[in-house]
């Protein structure tokens, strides 16, 4: 594996809780987990922070590092940026304003809806789709786990990713600037905190893709604030002007929301990372040449399915549907001034991640590949995971890369023991004679 500097990852392992089972091993979409010495290890370069392992770990050994609510006190002025999926976490929520008002009462000076950012982003993507030169389908940049998945597993599709920043970034830029102007304060003193449904967004704030620095200062998980916020919902909101996002923007909380916003008739929305992989393979093969836009969400149901949410994704999805029904036409209420005022577009290229590469040198990579093929042909093909690698194939790769030995395979070991036992018997016979 190519070694690189230590990257920040929100998804971590709590070693003492891990039992070294194969649950996460089998589910990781980038084969980034190995069990060594009875514990799981995450291969830094490969992890895309999708959070699949957090979801499947029976022992809660996989966790997401997020910021505590108390971290907002480092800033003089604090703005909450709730993900639209947050609105789906409460049973029969009376209005979105109840949530926004509740956040303000929790210590935030202001609230700016990420759904409003999504309105602006929707318009920016629509502009991009007018360019016939962009390779089709244009791929959404909203789910950071999918963007990272493409960097690792589909480097040839990077050019398809639309160069528009994520709604939370756009929301943070607008929120900060508007607050600073309105109150005449220094923008540096304003902290923007995203209320996040997933670890991928946390990582995207620390390590932005396609631009230098994030406009977001921290990420607090939905679970962290859930209890406190629910208790605030009984109060009648005083400020109804906070709620200004359209139903289209709120709809981004669930799979299909973005598609409806940018290209209702010619887009495809896919949720669940394995499903996304299947469709990305098809895009690679040029089987979806008539598709205009691809929206992929790593989580089932879209952001409402994020592992840091409280409510299950089906319930949250229907709650969102109830809240965002006023608007049935994909009309956006975003004035064109917004479009030029902020940096809506990425400033840098998205680069491929070469973590899957066997070697930097092609000749050496081919030699390794040959050895891998040979070893693989000798393996049982059970993909049992007992060796600590997710499949027999990855085990062969690990052995050739020097990260495992043949005898880590219990089936190879059994064969070896049989041979040795026979040798002992033979030896015993000869010495007796």
């Amino acid at each position, binding site marked *: 594996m190519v070694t690189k500097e230590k990257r920040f990852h929100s998804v971590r392992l709590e070693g003492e809780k891990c039992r070294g089972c194969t649950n996460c091993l089998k589910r990781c979409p980038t084969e980034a987990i190995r069990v060594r010495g009875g514990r799981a290890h995450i291969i830094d370069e490969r992890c895309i922070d999708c959070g699949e392992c957090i979801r499947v770990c029976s022992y809660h050994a996989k966790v997401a590092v997020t910021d505590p609510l108390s971290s907002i006190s480092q800033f003089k002025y604090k703005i909450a940026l709730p993900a639209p999926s947050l609105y789906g976490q409460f049973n029969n929520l009376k209005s979105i304003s109840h949530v926004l008002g509740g956040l303000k009462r929790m210590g935030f000076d202001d609230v700016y809806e990420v759904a409003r950012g999504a309105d602006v982003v929707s318009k920016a993507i629509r502009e991009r789709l007018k360019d016939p030169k962009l390779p089709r389908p244009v791929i959404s940049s909203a789910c950071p786990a999918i963007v990272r998945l493409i960097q690792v*597993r589909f*480097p*040839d599709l*990077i*050019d398809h990713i639309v160069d528009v920043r994520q709604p939370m970034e756009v929301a943070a830029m607008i929120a900060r600037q508007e607050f600073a102007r309105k109150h005449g304060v220094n923008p540096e003193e304003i902290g923007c905190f995203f209320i996040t449904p997933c670890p991928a967004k946390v990582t995207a704030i620390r390590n932005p893709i396609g631009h230098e620095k994030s406009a977001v200062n921290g990420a607090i998980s939905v679970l962290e604030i859930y209890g406190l916020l629910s208790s605030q919902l009984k109060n009648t909101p005083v400020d109804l002007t906070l709620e200004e996002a359209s139903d289209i923007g709120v709809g981004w909380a669930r799979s299909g929301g973005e598609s409806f916003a940018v290209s209702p008739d010619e887009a495809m929305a896919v949720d669940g990372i394995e499903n996304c992989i299947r469709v990305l*393979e098809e895009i*690679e*093969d*040029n*089987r979806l040449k008539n598709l205009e836009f691809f929206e992929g969400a790593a989580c089932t149901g879209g952001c409402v399915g994020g592992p840091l949410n409280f409510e299950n994704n089906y319930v949250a999805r229907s709650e969102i549907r109830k809240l965002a029904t006023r608007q049935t036409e994909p009309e956006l209420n975003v004035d064109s001034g917004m479009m030029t005022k902020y940096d809506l577009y990425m400033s840098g290229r998205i680069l*491929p991640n*070469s973590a*899957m*590469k*066997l*070697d*930097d040198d*092609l*000749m050496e*990579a*081919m*030699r390794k*590949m*040959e050895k891998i*093929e040979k070893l693989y042909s000798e393996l049982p093909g059970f993909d049992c995971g007992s060796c600590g690698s997710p499949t027999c194939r990855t085990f062969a*790769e690990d052995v050739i890369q020097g990260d495992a030995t043949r005898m880590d395979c219990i089936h190879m070991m059994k064969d070896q023991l049989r041979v040795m036992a026979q040798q002992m018997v033979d030896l015993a016979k000869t010495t007796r004679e």
Partner: protein
Amino acid sequence: MAVLLEKSFPVEAGAFTTAGEASTTIKRTLKQLGINAEVLRHVSVACYEVELNLVIHSLGGTLTLLVDPEKVTLISKDVGPGIPDIDKAMTEGFSTASAEARTLGFGAGMGLPNMKRNATEFDIQSEVGVGTTITMSFALR
């Protein structure tokens, strides 16, 4: 330059359930070798087309991947039925795909032209009653 890597995949006629599997494995192999994105894209498109051609039109055959430091080569070799008129087969929009294949979205008559467009070098040899061999290479630099 000697071929350093060779992988062959048998492709069954009419096997739509497994269609595309060889292409997926070939893509994975090339990504692990670190083949650059642009070449990868061309190989992916041509590879899937040629694999589907084997499924739809041939009586079965083999898809072979060869890699050397200069190029990636794909060879599709089938056991029939052979193409009577190659020029016609190479024409955009011409297809002999079955009704079954058409319901699955194939048969637009873009297969062979698409392969030719994506490959650096493209060669097709065919004899009726014997079989067809398509050789495509993709330059690495």
